[in-house]
């Protein structure tokens, strides 16, 4: 009985280890990225997108980088029972295999603090997603109008 358990553990290690040791952030696909134009550079901007994990292992997003903003971070808007909305950093986001995570208005968003340049409608800006496995993914985010409601404008 005991030896059977050991064999099972050894077998699962053999199968499991190589799979989790390989960097899997390459399995992340970004869809429908968009952002709103800004008025000047004083106000923070926000960018939205869908992150889809097409691989077979969980992938964790740990941070953002962009030349557009000095302090980009994933934030989440929450609304309490009294209808009061507040916003705060969410830290890491883990995307399970086969699942997707949406950054969308009223939920999570890439908060772009300390804008270095104005976000101009019709332009795009590069956003780098950093993953826990050391992998990165570069996304060109289209900038839509200030009153845009979604990736279609």
């Amino acid at each position, binding site marked *: 009985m005991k030896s059977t358990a050991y064999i099972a553990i050894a077998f699962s290690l053999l199968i499991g280890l190589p799979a989790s040791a390989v960097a899997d952030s390459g399995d992340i696909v970004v869809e429908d990225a968009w952002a*709103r134009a800004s*008025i000047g550079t*004083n*106000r*923070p*901007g*926000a960018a939205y997108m869908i992150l889809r994990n097409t691989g077979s292992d969980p992938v964790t997003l740990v941070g953002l980088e962009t030349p557009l903003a*000095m*302090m980009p*971070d994933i*934030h989440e*808007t929450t*609304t309490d*029972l*009294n*209808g*009061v*909305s*507040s*916003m705060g*950093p969410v830290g890491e986001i883990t995307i399970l295999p086969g699942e997707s995570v949406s950054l969308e*208005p*009223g939920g999570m*968003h890439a*908060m*772009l*603090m*300390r804008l270095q340049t104005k976000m101009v409608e019709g332009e795009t800006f590069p956003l780098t997603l950093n993953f826990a496995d050391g992998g990165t993914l570069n996304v060109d985010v289209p900038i839509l*109008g*200030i*009153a*845009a*409601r979604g990736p279609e404008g």
Partner: protein
Amino acid sequence: MNRRTLLTFGAAVSGVVALTLFIGWWQVDGPGAPEPVAQRPLPLTQMEFQMTNQDGATVGPASLIGNPSMVFFGFTYCPDVCPTTLSDISGWLDDLGDEVADLNVVFITVDPERDTVDAMADYISYFHPAIQGWSGTLDTTARAAAGFRARYEKVATEGGDYAMNHTASVFLFDAEGQFSGTIDYHEQREFAVPKIRRVLTMEEETS
């Protein structure tokens, strides 16, 4: 069972019943009752505050009486909720078309320190032309929020900046200034538009 036991038993039963009733009252209506989740805003006629609109004119709750109104709080340094609310509202107004000609649509800033009259004028110019932007002083903002039973709070963010937590609901009033309901943040268009249409038709019935 003799008479004495029966009396004692009866007294005990009525004692228990009274205690149960008392506990019920305490928890539901008495001091132990939960705080009401959200209070209704006062009628516009009972509110008192003065602000400045995007054109520099002095405005207040009295400026809204005579037409139905839609009022909401926010701030222009808000990257997510406020532009979303303003674009949702712009979409509802587009859907209603000419029906909203007489509707007051007012965005009141909870961050008058950064949202000056000029900043508000600039910001709202990107949304539906019916949307007005009101800003006041710290004091008048507090008074306005109290009338609407809206809440807001300044919170520090990374890098020495700050953001405002605030009530994100949209308040609806009829032409007489009576509160008629709220549209919740991010409410679906198919629910929001009929609510607005209702305060618009209330005006026709009363005039």
